[in-house]
């Protein structure tokens, strides 16, 4: 098991290396002089030369790359062109809110969607199944910002249960954190509930037709035990995959929700950076997103073997 995890961790190195090369070349291969892009239209030749020097653009490409990777490994992601502060610091400041919201979203999604999917499969082709599937279609098709504004209208403006916008960290008090985090999490969760419920239902339907489910019933096992002990664990692998990819997508996809609810997370940081062509920040965001994907996939792969003993490495 340990050997397998080690193997998988080592296997992430080439993936991350390829991403790093891509990110590095992104700036270098953009048409025109990167220094000119960075310096803007009104730069003098002396300013350009200074920037080139500072960025090491006069060195051979390979040296530049090695230096850059060296910096990355020391945790130095460069300096923002916009605010002139360390990119690593900026990202770290913004990562907290995003991760918190994402965790809450995925928790809500799993807690609601998995039982929904299980029951829909168990009561296949009844009104319960129909209801779950209708909700699922709705969750897919209504845009995130519409759901966000509807939730604000109902719970913040009409009912006044929670604030309209803003963000407080859990250390500011759990009540303050949850009252502000609940609407954005629910907003984000709708599509994941739809996705995970659908996957759970499909996976459960397949498993419920298996011989060992018949065996369990032939033993006189109660239905809830049949569903959750015998069936759900066997159906777990595709569900986990969806949850894992969903979580990674979530981190990178929170842009709209963070804008609607005015949350200072990485979603907004990315948007601001793109609008301002703040290349070091954009680079850092791509690396971070890729890193999260790779890490979450690693977790999912390792967790497979926990649910399914046949997966041994």
């Amino acid at each position, binding site marked *: 098991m340990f050997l397998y995890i080690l193997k998988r961790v080592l296997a992430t190195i080439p993936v991350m290396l390829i991403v790093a090369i891509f990110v590095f070349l992104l700036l270098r291969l953009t048409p025109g002089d990167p220094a000119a892009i960075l310096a803007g239209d009104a730069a003098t030749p002396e300013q350009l030369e200074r920037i080139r020097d500072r960025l090491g653009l006069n060195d051979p490409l390979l040296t530049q790359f090695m230096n850059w990777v060296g910096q990355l490994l020391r945790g130095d992601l460069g300096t923002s062109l916009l605010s002139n502060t360390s990119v690593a610091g900026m990202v770290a400041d913004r990562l907290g809110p995003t991760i918190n919201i994402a965790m809450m979203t995925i928790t809500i999604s799993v807690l609601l969607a998995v039982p929904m999917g299980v029951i829909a499969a168990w009561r296949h082709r009844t009104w319960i199944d129909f209801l779950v599937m209708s909700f699922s279609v709705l969750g897919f098709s209504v845009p995130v910002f519409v759901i966000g504004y509807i939730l604000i209208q109902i719970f913040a403006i009409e009912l006044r249960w929670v604030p309209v916008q803003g963000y407080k960290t859990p250390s500011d008090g759990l009540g303050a954190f949850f009252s502000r985090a609940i609407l954005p999490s629910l907003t984000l969760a709708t599509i994941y509930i739809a996705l995970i419920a659908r996957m759970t239902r499909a996976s459960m339907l397949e498993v419920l037709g298996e011989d060992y489910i018949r065996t369990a019933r032939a033993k*006189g096992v109660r239905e809830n035990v049949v569903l959750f002990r015998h069936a759900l664990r066997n159906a777990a692998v595709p569900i986990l995959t969806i949850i894992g990819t969903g979580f990674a997508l979530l981190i990178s996809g929170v842009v709209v929700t963070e804008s609607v609810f005015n949350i200072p997370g990485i979603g907004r940081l990315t948007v601001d950076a793109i609008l301002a062509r703040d290349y070091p920040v954009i680079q850092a965001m791509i690396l971070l997103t890729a890193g999260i994907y790779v890490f979450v996939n690693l977790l999912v792969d390792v967790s497979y073997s926990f649910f399914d003993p046949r997966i041994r490495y």
Partner: protein
Amino acid sequence: MELKSRDFSDAKRVLKIRKLEVGLTGRPDAVHVLNEIDLDIRAGETHCLVGESGSGKSVTSLAAMGLLPKDALEIRGGLIDLQGFEITNATAAQMRELRARRIAMIFQEPMTALNPVLRVGEQIEEVLNMHTDLSQSEAKKRTIDIMEQVHLPDVERIYSAFPHQLSGGQRQRIMIAMALILDPDLLIADEPTTALDVTTQLQILKLIAEMQERQGTAVLFITHDMGVVAEIADTVSVMQKGRIVERAPIRDLLKNPQEDYTKKLLSAVPNLTPRSARDVSGKKDVVAVEDLNMTYGGGGLFRKSDEVKAARDVNFSIAPGRTLGIVGESGSGKSTVARCIMRLIDPTAGKITVAGHEIAKLTRRQLQPHRKHLQIVFQDPYRSLNPRWTVARSLCEGPINFGTSREEAMEKAAELMELVDLPRDALARYPHQFSGGQRQRIAIARAVAMKPDLLVADEAVSALDVSVQAQVLDLLDDIQEKFGVAMLFITHDLRVAAQICDEVLVMQRGQVVEHGPAGRVLSDPHHDYTRNLIEAAPGRHWDFANFRALESAPGHQGAIA
């Protein structure tokens, strides 16, 4: 072998089924799946339910368990009575209470019938947790105890093993332990040995008989295998199209069957007495295999994985018009040899000469022109034909790839349909519109369309009912006579091998242990392994087709005591 002849009229009746009707859910007008089923089983009795696939054997057993799939089948009338308790009227909770405690079931495929993600010990113990108040330690003790009773080795280790870590026979023992731990009155066994090798089958049949003896259990045994019936049955019910057409004590049924259908079923059981080899003098071998070796594994990124020698120094040759059978149990390497010759996998060493060309070391591209000399028919016709292609397209694809024009290929395809006894208009249809036997005919037609020199049949009749099996074997015989094709016939079934092979090669753990004319190998085996295989063949002392016992059974003495 002695057929059983015990009298059960004094024993208490465990299961009584009267006029049972089962129909399709929500379609009261449709023809019923079961019609007027009557069945009685008494304590200690083994009642065999035989019939071909689709005859309603499994539906009958599921109805007795209250396990009919609700959205497909429902009981329309009649009565199922388990010692005074009427199952037909029971609530779901009452049925749950009954299962495992009074009525238990084991299934055909012990791999899929056990939950792959739970330890087998836990799965047995679950029965106790559901139905008794035993403490955790008592439950474990009882579980270990029943596991010992079904003769599992190294019980402590197997207790915490997962199903995939056990052999097929061990898994079926786990199923039996699970079914019998609460000492039920009735055990329903639905084809419990069909997926197992003959030697394992023999052990499992013995085990069921032993447990039955010890606990006085009534057994309803569902099978399509007349050999198994002859070994274990007290009473037999023959089912056809949802009805019981004949019921009799085993001796009467085998010696003096009344119904035509029963006679037909019995006559279709292939004889273990081998055919006489056909003359091949003067013909050059069309296939020759020399020192073929196939080793799996041995690679690995971080550490060397264990090597498995799936085939070791295999040598044989086949002349045109002759059939060589490779027999052996699962894992013996017989399919590996077939796949090496087909070059579906690459042998690690050795020579394969087909129609004068050495093909063992050719690259995929170099191999392409030789492919048409080699054709294969697989075991499962449900999966070997592309479900989205018409029969015509499947039949024409190969010849067109080798330069035949579309019109010519279509014409040939139509001729082939006649050859395999299917109507010409079947060409426009899709595989799911045919029965299993018809599909296997199509698969054979597809192979023959290439005019191969060698036809490999990998368990090609194993998935078919006996009567269909007999027809397909006849068809293969005809084709061989007509085209003079050499045939490599892979099978685990000695009866089938006896019917069709001129020569037999017996494999065990990758090695050839015996090789010779079918007549000699099957009637006078030299190797212990061959002898064990023959002795394990169920019902080998009975000549089913002629309704009498065999004077001298093939092989040596000794069957189920």
